[in-house]
Structures are given as C-alpha cells and as structure tokens.
C-alpha cells in the first residue's frame, strides 16, 4: 500500500482517481505512525509553501525514516518543493532538505503563475521517466519552482529553466500534476507504483 499523505494542502480527489486508474493500492494515513506499514509514500499538495507546516516534527520524522528504509517517495507539485531545503515563498518554513537548494519565484517576465501544458526536457535517464519521451507535454500550475540541480532528471523552460522532475535514489518528485497530464502522467504514476511493489513494509 502507498501512503497518500493528506495534510490539507488542496484537494486529493484527482490524485486518488488517477491512482485508482493505474490500479495502485493506497491509503491516507491518519497518523505518522501509520507510515511504517506503507511500501511507499506520496506527498501531494498545492498552494503556499507554508501549508507544509501542517506536517509537524512527527510527520517529518516518519517521512524521513521511510526514505531511510529505502521506500520510494514521490512528491507532487508542492510535494516536490518540500523535498528541498525551503522556499523563498515562506523563508522561515523548512523543507525536508533531502535535496539541496531552495525554491524561488519564477521570474515574472511572462505571466506567473505558470499554468498549462509545457514540455519535459530530459536531462538524464531516470527510472521514473522510463518510457516517457523527451518533449512530452504535462500540466503545470505553480508560481514557485525548484532549481535545476544534480537531482533534476527533466527540466522545463518557462521564464527560466526549473526542475520539472527530480530523482535521487528512492526519492522522486514532479512539479507538474501527473493526475492531470493524460497518459504521460498515468504512465509515470504506474512506474512509481511498480517501485513500491518491490519495497517491503518494515
């Protein structure tokens, strides 16, 4: 079972429907302790970076220990940004810090928020993007974005290049919404679900 962490940052109906569509088994843990029984974790979220504050120290510790146990974790949108050290959107709110760097506002040389379908520019091969060709369009809606670092496996170019997909060991993140990105998004969720079926619960 995948633990879909519901901390109140946005509505998860679409994520649940997409996971159902790829036959992924999931549950929403009521407490951090329930993460121990999961084979993988999804941290979704939309909105302000400060919303991640609802994930208190117990949640952070539980999420970090699932990563240390080698279980796959997928951050979606705000969930990707949460993997980094923080964001200028809420400078006093720490991210998980699994990935180096801070998220920043996209340069507003065009409209920000960045809303709509944009392309993935593959930076290096990755497990999460297996079978997804470069140039595939995916659906974004965000104003802040993560920097292109060593963890970035696919970038997207808008007013500046930013990390669209990150991957570091068993930690994965997507800035776009796979649950709203048609077949490309479903394929990605299918891949992630397949990683979790290989992981064992503690």
């Amino acid at each position, binding site marked *: 079972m995948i633990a879909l962490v519901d901390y109140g*940052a*946005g*509505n998860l*109906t*679409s994520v649940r*429907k*997409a996971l*159902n*569509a790829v036959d992924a088994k999931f549950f929403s843990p009521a407490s951090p302790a329930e993460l121990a029984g999961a084979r993988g974790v999804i941290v979704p979220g*939309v*909105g302000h970076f400060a919303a991640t504050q609802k994930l208190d120290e117990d949640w952070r510790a539980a999420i970090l220990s699932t990563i240390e146990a080698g279980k796959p974790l997928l951050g979606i949108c705000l969930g990707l940004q949460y993997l980094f050290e923080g964001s200028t959107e809420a400078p006093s709110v720490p991210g998980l810090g699994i990935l180096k760097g801070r998220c920043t506002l996209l340069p*507003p040389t*065009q*409209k*920000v*928020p*960045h*809303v*709509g*379908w*944009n*392309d993935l520019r593959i930076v290096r091969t990755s497990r999460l993007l297996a*079978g*997804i*060709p470069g*140039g*595939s*369009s995916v*659906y974004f*809606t*965000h104003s802040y974005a993560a920097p292109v670092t060593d963890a970035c496996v696919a970038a997207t*170019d*808008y007013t500046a290049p930013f990390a669209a997909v990150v991957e570091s060991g068993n930690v994965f993140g997507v800035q776009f919404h796979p*649950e*709203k*990105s*048609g*077949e*490309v*998004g*479903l*394929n990605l969720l*299918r891949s992630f679900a397949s990683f979790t079926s290989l992981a064992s619960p503690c």
Partner: protein
Amino acid sequence: MLAKRLIACLDVRDGSVVKGVQFEDLARAGDPAALARRYNVEGIDELVILDVTATIEKRRALDATLRAVSAELFIPLAVGGGIRSEDDAAAAIDAGADKVALNSAALDDPSLVTRLASRYGSQAVIVAIDAKRDSERPAEPAPIAPRPAPLAPRSARYSVFSRSGSTRTPREAIEWAREAADRGAGEILLTSIDRDGTRSGFDCELTAAVSSAVPIPVIASGGAGTFEHFFDVFTAGRADAALAASVFHFSEHAISELKGYLHARGIPVRLDARTSQSPASNPEPPC
C-alpha cells in the same frame, strides 16, 4: 514552450449534453462522459462543463456527471454555471472538478473568490466575466478641477453582466478582472457577449486589454467560427487559452486539425496527446 490551450465547453442539463455536441451518435445519447472521452482522444487540453440545469432539485445530476467524466479523464476539468456558494464549489470539487468558475456569485460576493482560493488554492478558482462593449461612452460629469490625463486611454469600455448576461452591473471588465486576480482568482474566463454565438471571431481587443491587465491566464470565449479566429485570439488577442463549443462541430477531427493549423503558423500547442501513450499499449509509431 508553454502551449496555448484549447478548451472544449460542454453545456450539460440534468446530466445530458444539450449543446456543443460534435458527434451525432454521441449527441443522441447525450452522454457527457462519452463526449469527453472523444474530445480527449482528439487532443483537447481541458474541459469545461457548464451546468445549465434550471432547478436546484436536479443539480444532483451534475455531481454524477462530474464523477463519471473525472473517473476516466485525466486532464484539467472545470465546472461552471450555478456555483453560488462555497458549498456548491466544495460539492463540485469533491465530485472531481479541478476548478470552479464563479460568475454572478463572485459579483454578488467578491470575498467568495478569496475564501475558495484559501481553501483550495488559486489554481482551483476561475472568475468568469461576461463582458459587453458599451455602445457609447457614458457621459462624464464635467470636471470641477483639471484632472490628470488617464495613464492609458482606452478606445472602448466594457460592462460586466451577470445572470447569464441578462443583468448589467456597474462594473467594468478590466477593473473587475484586476480585482478578481487580486482577490485570488487563478484564471479569468472572459466571454464577449457581443460575439457569443456569432461565429464572427473572438473579441481580440477586449481579450488583449484584459490579458495585458492581469498577471493570470485569460481564457477567451465567444465568437469562435474558423481556425483563423483562434490564431487571431492567440496573437492579437494575447489569450492564454481559447474556449469553444460549436466550432468543434465542423468535422470529426476539428480539434486535431485546428492544432495542426496553429502549429504550422507558429502557435505553440500540445501535439503529443495521442503519441505519448505507453509503447506497450500503443504499438503505433509516433506520427
């Protein structure tokens, strides 16, 4: 490159599609989910379900429609028409809508925009504006003292209408769009009442004026009749997305043909909807 979005609008009454029907066989069935599926295969970027159900008692059908469409369609889905309150919006979002479009309700109570944006995020809140070009500029009172010249003189003024275009409000479209964005709207759905249903082209002047005035995407609506109209609204009109219903009647492949036309004329569009399926499930080579 960020693609210009093509959005199909399905008018739904009591759970059945009543307008904007492209395919005769599906039209008879009136099944929104079947139509949505067909549009999706054609490469539509987003869907809007406009609920035109007359009575509150029958609005439960909308939830069933949203559940059916969102269970198998994994592109953005917006719902408009009859979202009067936070509860209406919550019901639509719980049923599977990603975005709700507020029109009269936002005009009656602009704080609803902020409340919904706080609860669901700005990306979930569209403010729909029905605008009509004023036939003549309203008479202005004689200035008592000399006034500074306006910063950007405008050639036309557009009034905002509520109640499906039946009621003129005191608001002006560009100012209302700015206020909606300030209050937390994530997108503006801008309909030209003058052009709606005419197939004479989008109101590019109106669309460009609003799009230039707000930092959020503007979806142009009203007047689509030819492929060239879409080109015009994405260039002169500075629209981020264009919405249409009846124009997609033209042929069974209107959406993919329109995308090909726009692509050939240098407009960025999403083209890989059908070629990006997993190789295992789709052995066809990419075209």
